[in-house]
């Protein structure tokens, strides 16, 4: 299922809740925690940074392949072309004083999901994240 949200300014929680309520989502609590956190970080990236002033749309969708139990979450927007996967990764071994606060969100997505990929197509940023959900 998918839905286009327009405009998206201040709509992060509505978009996150829409995705989390999808029938494709697992019921396992620990898995939902990881999915919600990944979704929140990815959606926030678009809502905060994709459009000047947050005026624009975001299409959010889920798909579950019932044979492989592979869950796919896709976010699409027509904002400023931006590949979040090219952001430098945070130095997770740095001392508190040296820790930079940037890049944490997308780093969490990379760690919590099985795969994450980005492409720019027909003027759209498309972020795709997948997670195998065997235990739910």
């Amino acid at each position, binding site marked *: 299922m998918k839905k286009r949200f327009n405009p998206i300014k201040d709509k992060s929680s509505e978009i996150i809740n829409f995705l989390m309520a999808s029938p494709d989502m697992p019921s396992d609590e620990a898995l939902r925690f990881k999915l919600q956190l990944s979704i929140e*970080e990815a959606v926030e990236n678009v809502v905060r940074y994709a459009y000047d002033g947050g005026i624009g749309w975001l299409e959010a969708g889920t798909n579950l392949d019932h044979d492989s139990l592979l869950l796919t979450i896709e976010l699409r927007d027509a904002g400023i072309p931006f590949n979040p996967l090219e952001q430098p990764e945070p130095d997770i071994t740095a001392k508190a004083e040296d820790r930079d606060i940037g890049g944490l969100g997308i780093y969490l997505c990379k760690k919590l999901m099985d795969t994450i990929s980005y492409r720019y197509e027909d003027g759209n940023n498309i972020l795709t994240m997948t997670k195998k959900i065997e235990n739910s």
Partner: protein
Amino acid sequence: MEVIINKQLEKTLVEVKGRIDTTNAEQFQHDLMPLMEGGPKDIDIDCSGLEYTSSQGLRTFLMLQKSVNAKGGQMVLRHMNPMVKEVFDITGFSNIITIL
């Protein structure tokens, strides 16, 4: 999300409950500001009621840790649930924040 601050002579006891997410991360930062401004330099945070935190919540914990370090104090986070602990582990925050 709820933050309860109990300043004592020796240290400040804090309870963090609920979810820190996009709807209230700014409020969470605001709620912790008094800890960064003054009071005892040691902080003890009970996280048993903390159900979820996004990276925005992590950033606030990092700000607080930096403020405690600058004062030469100690901060501990206690009773964190395993799912929240994993977020601190993955991001390396467990290395810079004491979690008991």
